[in-house]
């Protein structure tokens, strides 16, 4: 019975200390003008029974990273030289879209605003950009990969289970799982990689590997090989936002690891939910329309607009002619090393 009394005493002291801290904190955040602090205080972050943050919810990045990871001004989605050679105008595939066909400007998300490409890879990135319509996996509704899936202009849902964090992406119905428990190695490559997670304080850290070479990082031709290794960090900022950081490493393509960082926001609509975006059939006309017996997309013959659309797919860039992204694999790079400048 004596030990029970001692336990009760310990509990009482603990309770007094905790309430003291709580009172101090409350007083602090109740100061006039401290409302923001109250919202930012870690006590507002949804937590689980084990006190770890709960990232469950519907989320979306709200930035221009999927267009271009680097700081960029407006530019045509598809352009051509105009009257002045250095002032581009819209090219045929998007000319009817007018202002919609211009990429919105935004600040970049890359630390130092520089992607440390090896010289051959810097050249390839420019080629990728010039061949965007033929090479960007997003155009074909192919899986977005990581980290790109996290900042596409679509909602995604996190279902944080007891030992698995399931992420479901509206775009293409893609999904990925972060394993918080012991799991055997993934026996293959995966577009969305294989992710193993652990906690560092309030930060969920995911180590992602086993990638293919067939995903891109944005719509500007930024790319990687199958040696890609991503370390992600998810840190709560407030109840409704978390900081997403990804350190990107690829010995085939970059000279050093580099990092992107951005906030990702919760959808606050009361009935926020994912909806089905089965883009595979949406991309069929683009990928396979030329193989129809009777072509559906003929030369544009608008009511008042006559536009000659003639796009020749450059040799080697046909869909599935090689990898659909145009990226080389580790094996190809080893067999035919790119010329280093």
């Amino acid at each position, binding site marked *: 019975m004596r030990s029970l009394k001692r336990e009760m005493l310990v509990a009482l002291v603990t309770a007094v200390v905790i309430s003291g801290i709580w009172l101090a904190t409350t007083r602090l955040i109740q100061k006039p003008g401290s409302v923001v602090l109250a919202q930012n205080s870690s006590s507002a972050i949804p937590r*689980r*029974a*084990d006190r770890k943050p*709960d990232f*469950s919810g519907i989320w979306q990045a709200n930035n221009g990273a999927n267009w271009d990871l680097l700081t960029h001004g407006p530019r045509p989605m598809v352009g051509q030289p105009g009257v002045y050679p250095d002032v581009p105008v819209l090219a045929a595939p998007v000319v009817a879209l007018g202002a919609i066909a211009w990429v919105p400007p935004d600040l970049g998300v890359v630390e130092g605003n520089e992607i440390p490409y090896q010289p051959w890879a810097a050249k390839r990135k420019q080629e990728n950009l010039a061949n965007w319509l033929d090479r960007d996996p997003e155009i074909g*509704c*192919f*899986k977005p990969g990581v980290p790109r899936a996290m900042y596409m202009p679509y909602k995604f*849902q*996190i*279902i*944080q*289970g*007891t*030992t*698995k*964090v*399931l992420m*479901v992406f509206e775009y*293409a*119905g893609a*999904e990925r*799982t972060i394993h918080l*428990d*012991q*799991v*055997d190695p*993934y026996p*293959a490559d*995966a*577009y*969305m990689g294989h992710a193993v997670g652990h906690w560092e304080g309030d930060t969920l850290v995911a180590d992602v590997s086993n990638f293919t070479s*067939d995903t891109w990082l944005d719509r500007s031709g930024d790319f990687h090989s199958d040696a890609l290794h991503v370390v992600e960090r998810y840190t709560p900022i407030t109840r409704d936002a978390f900081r997403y950081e990804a350190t990107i490493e690829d010995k085939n393509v970059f000279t050093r690891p580099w990092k992107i960082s951005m906030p990702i926001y919760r959808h606050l609509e009361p*009935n926020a*939910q*994912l*909806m*089905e975006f*089965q883009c*595979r*059939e949406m991309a*069929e006309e683009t*990928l*396979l329309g030329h*193989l*129809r*017996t*009777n072509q*559906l997309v003929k030369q544009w013959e608008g009511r008042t607009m006559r536009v000659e659309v003639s796009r020749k797919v450059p040799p080697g860039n046909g*869909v*599935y002619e090689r990898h*659909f992204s145009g990226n080389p694999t580790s094996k190809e790079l080893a067999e035919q090393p790119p010329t280093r400048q």
Partner: protein
Amino acid sequence: MLVRLFMLLTIVSAGVQAQSAKQFRTPWGEPDLQGIWNGETLTPLQRPARFANMPVLTPEEAAKAEAEVDSRPGRDKRAKEGTEKDVAGAYNQAFFDRSPRSLHLVDRRTSLIIDPPNGLLPTLTPEAQKRRAAIREYEQALLQGTSGGRPGPPSPLYFEPPPFYNVDRLNRADGPEDRSLQERCLAWELPHLDTFYRIVQSRGQVGIVVDAFQGQGFVRTIPVDGSKHLPASIRSYKGDARGHWEGDTLVVDITNFSPKSDYLGSRQNRHVVERFKRVSQNRLEYTITVEDPTTWTRPWTAMEPLEKQSDKENQIYEADCHEGNYGLMDMLANTRAAEKLFKEEKGPNPRTMDIATGGGVDPADQKYSFGRAGAE
């Protein structure tokens, strides 16, 4: 001393109670259905005729039935070499890589359907029979005069669109819409029985990653938060799913299916109610009730027990049907090439060739398989 003993007993019994309740409860108190679950089974959706009035077999009968199926050559059996049928049957048994559980009748049952009690799908409505006949007539017309079809000249129906949105493999490849939903990687079919599932839960949300043959897998998100169905104008392959708890059972109501989706001939009027009930550590009873007054004369119910798998050794692998879908493009490209050769008088008329019937499930195996074959 007596007091101490009493306290100890109280603590121990409370601990045991807490543990057994905690076993199937998430830390936030909802029933816990999480993990990888295997639903593969030899038991077909519908009861084969030879097992009429035998819903459950004796151990001897079951062993005999299983051994008989096991001894069949299955997909390794080839059609006559060099025939169109042989070329179309490109996948052998190894591609289907089923678990050992798929070689056994689950609980020695002869059908997954538990209602109607005869283990068979209910009678089709006259409307559905008409629909099915129209689709069948169209498909047969496109095969007319080929090695896989009835005799006769190529049918003028070849130049007409199908009576309903096509979900099958037609004997035509004018464009992607002539190919089956499977070939186009659009087979997000619900309900989806006889496969693996990963269930992950957070408070008020359930996610299910559904494995399916040949990279057709897909992921579902089910709000279990009292929210209402989407407006009827929003239609999708997976439909709109809303869950609620009835005791420890997760009940999911699915509506808003697309007219382009298909389950045993039921399309946009399909209404599916799923029940997930965990009855022990390793057993989850998955019950579906399917209702479509434009297809069946009454609702029907099937129950499939799922078996828990090791979370460490097993994963649901990424479904990459679309990423590797050279087949769809090649199917169209080959037919265009054949048309060109025919025009140059260097090859046969592609319209006289059969590119539809090969590669399907052998009729001898149909009574043990799922899918459309089970609906015939």
